[in-house]
């Protein structure tokens, strides 16, 4: 049951055994998060830098809590306070951080591939906390953990992912991980938000909400980035909500016990109505809770010795 990855760059690199081990480990960590004293000394003396080139509250806080509960020393660097604004290159930033000898760098960056770039240039282990439209592996893993808790297994489940697939790293990481674990993935998006060739991942592409939801075990709604819209991808938020939003009525197409998921932050009334977001089937806050456990598991698993390159 060895974990052979130094870096966590994406779910693309993980095997089914890796994913199972991460989820099993995360379940054990979940117990720690329910204790009075939510801390273990595992990563005592390890230094973790959270290098966030893109604004993020929830992911950064989740990683930070995971690090602190493992007793690592964590330092946050965000773009607004960093030297990026002064025109420093990512390589120089990496070299400077490296000189301070961190053990792990958690990076979020708007450029796809930025974590790969760092991994090739520094000794520290790199954890991808979201790069461009590429991957967001910890989010996908916490989604899988949440699904597995409710459904027992991922195999054979029908998972519908709905929203801006083109620009969603959450969708990419989830599609890859879910397919590896034996789930069927269905995708729905306006044609302007469906990336070319995506069906080569094995996911099925749908055009109507009712068809995509029909018999689904899990409905994963993606955030529509309002700031990106208003140009040419969708005519209006109103029209988007009408054809691609999840509401109480179309949710009935899914199985009665289907889980409703969302990576947050939610645009209420756009991709999902409030009554569904707050309804019985939603597991959105469980996703957040599991996020801490999954991130603890990832940090723990890459901290052992005798690991080989990813």
């Amino acid at each position, binding site marked *: 049951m*060895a974990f052979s990855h130094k870096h966590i760059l994406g779910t693309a690199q993980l095997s089914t055994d890796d994913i199972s081990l991460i989820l099993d*480990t995360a379940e054990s960590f979940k117990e720690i998060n329910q204790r*009075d004293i939510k801390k273990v000394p595992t990563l005592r003396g390890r230094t973790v830098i959270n290098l966030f080139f893109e604004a993020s509250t929830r992911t950064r806080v989740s990683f930070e809590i995971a690090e602190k509960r493992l007793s690592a020393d964590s330092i946050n660097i965000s773009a607004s306070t960093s030297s990026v604004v002064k025109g420093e290159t990512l390589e120089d930033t990496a070299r400077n951080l490296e000189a301070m000898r961190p053990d792990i760098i958690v990076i979020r960056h708007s450029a796809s591939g930025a974590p790969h770039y760092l991994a090739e240039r520094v000794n520290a282990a790199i954890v991808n906390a979201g790069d461009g439209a590429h991957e967001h592996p910890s989010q996908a893993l916490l989604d899988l953990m949440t699904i597995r808790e409710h459904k027992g297994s991922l195999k054979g489940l029908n998972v519908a992912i709905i929203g801006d697939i083109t620009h969603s790293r959450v969708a990419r990481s989830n599609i890859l991980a879910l397919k590896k674990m034996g789930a069927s993935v269905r995708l729905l998006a306006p044609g302007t938000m469906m990336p070319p060739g995506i069906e080569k991942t094995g996911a099925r592409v749908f055009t109507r909400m009712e068809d995509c939801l029909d018999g689904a075990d899990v409905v994963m709604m993606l955030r529509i980035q309002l700031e990106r819209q208003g140009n040419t991808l969708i005519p209006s938020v109103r029209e988007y909500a009408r054809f691609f939003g999840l509401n109480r009525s179309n949710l009935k197409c899914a199985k009665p016990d289907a889980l409703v998921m969302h990576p947050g932050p939610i645009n209420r009334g756009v991709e999902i109505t409030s009554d569904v977001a707050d309804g019985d089937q939603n597991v959105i806050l469980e996703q957040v809770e599991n996020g801490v456990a999954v991130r603890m598991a990832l940090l*723990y698993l890459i901290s*052992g*010795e005798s690991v080989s390159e990813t």
Partner: protein
Amino acid sequence: MAESNTLILDKAGIRRALTRISHEILERNKGTTDLALVGIRTGGDFLARQLAAMIDRIEESQVPVGVIDITLYRDDLSHREVRPVEKTTLPFSLDDRQVVLVDDVLFTGRTIRAAMDALMDLGRPRNIQLAVLIDRGHRELPIRPDYIGRNVPTSKDEGIVVEFNEDNAPVSVLLKKN
């Protein structure tokens, strides 16, 4: 390299040792009031259940049993591959308990140190005692067991293996020489 195994304890021998330890625990703690057994994964948890069952037979009193996984408290993370982390389950409060930590083999004492740290993070027991089936020596920390099934002098390159059957009951203790 040739490998040879020497039988240290058979099933009956293990039963006799655990029976004696059960009596000693009851005597030392004057019964089962506030008593709890906590087994260390993996091995100690099975023995803790055996001890609890024996104490129940002797005293007709049920002692709560917990299981802890000390992987996250180990001091050798940077020296070895990561191990899977199992769940820690303590279905009772540790506060003001008399806790008997149970492990199968006592060696360097590092596992017990980690287990005590883990217990301290989970509550404030009145005292912690230590029961082991085998004490093989070579301590690296000032740790001494309160209850011992058998002292087995070993060399460092030998190994002690406690074998369990499919019902997690101990069936033999072997000394392995390389």
